[in-house]
């Protein structure tokens, strides 16, 4: 190389390196406002982004100190992405976490909030929260997250699909009553399923088969339980468990009222319901903003969980704010300040206004429900009073994997397909369940 070209080349390389890495160096060496900002990660759609922008703006207004930098991630694989950041030592300071994956990492990953519980402001806020919300974020009795918002599952009914079925049958198919039963649910599913053009393919299905997590209310309706009260013993064995699995199987195999995945390929639960491909589905309040923006805005109805031998409890699920253990010193103080702000009535009202989830604070949720024009909002808030907390456990990932496999097996399109009894036995004996839980009887 020409010696005269060495110097310009070196300058060019250095300039390029500065252009590429200056922000990174500033961030990690603590220079500039970016480095001081509290990193906050959350998931969701565009509506969630807008909601968090409002909350963060509310927090920063009148509160001097480092700003909060939102880090938005899609919901798909959110917990895995957090896990990767934790493993890499680069986790955000504050993380929105769902209750299920929270239990898996809580003790090691998140700050103990017990000392902060003595703060009168936070103590008052927590006392106003739904009990299940606070319980969700206690790991081994220690509070490691502050509940923020949540939801439960009810049966969404597409009115147009009901009307279409009525036209097909020549008699109306009525919307469910508040006290409907599992038998009435089956009857509705069958009436709502039909082949309109007679080409041998079903055009409208009664119900969309949910994943096991969403299926929990129907599982409870059969009297089945996954875990014991201490969440260490496996209880999904015996007649109730088999009945719940058999019901799940018959919906697909015998009655054909739910589509196989291939029959709504390319759609997800939301769009299959919106398009009327399925007339009913189990979903939470987070579907409301989506429906509000569609032609189904006034064309849906929300019904309670149908009653079975085990009752009609729905499942509560909560999202909470956790502070990473790696967040220390003044940053931790600022992070805690932000978490406390998210539990203030001001921030909780923003949650309510976005109608995507139920605020963790009952007082705010009650005011919202009373004033909400949509009956569905009142129904979801009302159901929260009696909703059951799902069996969250540090073994959630293993349990989730085993249950997903079992539920997929019992409704497999192609044999071999286990019977419900066989599936329950195989599940209890699977390495994931046998390795995590005390066997039940």
């Amino acid at each position: 190389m020409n010696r005269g070209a060495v110097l310009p080349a070196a300058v060019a390389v250095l300039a390029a390196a500065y252009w590429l890495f200056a922000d990174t160096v500033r961030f990690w060496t603590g220079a500039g406002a970016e480095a001081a900002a509290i990193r906050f990660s959350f998931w969701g759609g565009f509506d969630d982004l807008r909601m968090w922008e409002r909350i963060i703006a509310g927090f920063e207004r009148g509160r001097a100190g480092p700003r909060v930098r939102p880090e938005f991630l899609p919901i798909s694989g959110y917990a895995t992405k957090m896990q990767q950041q934790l493993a890499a030592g680069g986790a955000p300071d504050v993380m929105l976490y769902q209750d299920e994956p929270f239990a898996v990492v809580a003790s090691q990953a998140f700050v103990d909030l017990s000392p902060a519980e003595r703060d009168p402001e936070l103590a008052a806020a927590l006392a106003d929260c739904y009990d299940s919300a606070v319980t969700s974020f206690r790991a081994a009795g220690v509070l490691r997250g502050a509940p923020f918002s949540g939801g439960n599952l009810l049966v969404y009914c597409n009115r147009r699909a009901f009307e279409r079925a009525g036209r097909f049958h020549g008699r109306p198919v009525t919307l469910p009553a508040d006290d409907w039963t599992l038998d009435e649910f089956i009857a509705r599913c069958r009436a709502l399923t039909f082949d309109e053009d007679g080409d041998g393919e079903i055009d409208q299905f009664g119900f969309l088969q949910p994943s096991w997590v969403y299926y929990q209310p129907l599982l409870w309706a059969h009297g089945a339980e996954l875990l014991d009260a201490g969440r260490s013993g496996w209880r999904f064995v015996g007649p109730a468990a088999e009945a719940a699995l058999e019901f799940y199987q018959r919906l697909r195999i015998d009655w054909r009222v739910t589509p196989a995945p291939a029959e709504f390929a390319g759609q997800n639960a939301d769009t299959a319901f919106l398009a009327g491909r399925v007339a009913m589905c189990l979903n939470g309040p987070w579907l409301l903003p989506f429906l509000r923006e569609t032609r189904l805005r006034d064309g849906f109805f929300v019904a309670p969980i149908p009653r079975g031998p085990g009752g009609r409890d729905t499942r509560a699920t909560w999202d909470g704010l956790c502070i990473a253990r790696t967040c220390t010193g003044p940053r931790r103080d600022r992070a805690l300040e932000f978490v406390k702000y998210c539990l203030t009535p001001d921030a909780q009202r923003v949650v309510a206004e976005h109608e995507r989830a139920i605020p963790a604070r009952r007082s705010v949720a009650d005011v919202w429900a009373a004033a909400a024009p949509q009956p569905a909002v009142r129904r979801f808030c009302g159901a929260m009073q009696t909703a059951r907390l799902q069996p969250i456990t540090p073994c959630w990932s293993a349990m989730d994997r085993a249950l997903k496999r079992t539920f997929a097996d019992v409704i497999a399109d192609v044999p071999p397909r286990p019977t419900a009894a066989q599936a329950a036995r195989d599940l209890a004996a699977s390495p994931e369940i046998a390795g995590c839980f005390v066997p039940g009887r």
Partner: protein
Amino acid sequence: MFRSRSLTARSSPPRGSAFAAPWLAGAALLYVLPMISAGGLATLHWNGVAIEDARFVGLANFRRLLTADPAAGRALARSAMYTAMSVPAQLAVGLGLALLIRGARRRQWWATLFYLPHVLAGVATILVWAWLLNPRVGPINALLAGLMRPLGFSASSLPLWLYSADAARPALVLMSCWHAGGAMLIFLAALLRVPPAQYESAALDGAGAWARFRHVTLPMIAPALLFNVLTGIVAAMQAFNAPFLLQTPPQRDALLFVAPYLYRCAFEQSDLGYAAAVAWLLFAVLLLFSGLLVAATRRWMRVEYSEAGT
């Protein structure tokens, strides 16, 4: 015929090292260092949350992998099966395309056209393929239905592709042919260096098209074939994006290959030490297989391009 002075002249060592330096630095940072780290990680029991909670377990992860984890064996077998299906398919399509365009008038245009899928963004094309293979509304099944209806087949007999345990792997093999442009380009370069005189003398000796392909073309492009086989095997055994993105419950883990299994161990089962052991096993298998393949095919690799081209 392709040689030029600038390409064949030997560079002085310092300048050669300078040119190689960025690649070497990248390889050291992005491959060697992570490999060494993964080796260390494989001796730990760590759930990937707080490194101070990691526990040294020596070779226990490797012991568990080799003696007590049938799921890992199944994942390896699935990968091997996929490799055995996809590599020959990709090579056949690649070689076929190269043979097809070797004598074409606008060869460069065709080569660019067939190579294009190879440079398109991976995830985007995977999602497009998910739609193409959609059993309800996808064009592939629509085409098959059109072809099969006159033969008396009904729509229900069409493959469910990604929604079936049996058809998921063939669907992925079909997708892999989409990337045959890479192999095609290498085959084309090799084919263009086969001296026409060899074909002429073979033809004079009465060799037909197949005999010329079998006894002239194949031996002459053997190094390119070996290269494509090796890189194809490595890529197929490490397949992650497509099998990971296209998993559906009805597949019953048909697409749970080694790389997605490794990912599952690391980030779904929170067992990073064990996942590192799986990664090392995959590396060892590929190294061993590549070594055996190179050794076994050494006697076929007699072609010297510098001579062939003259």
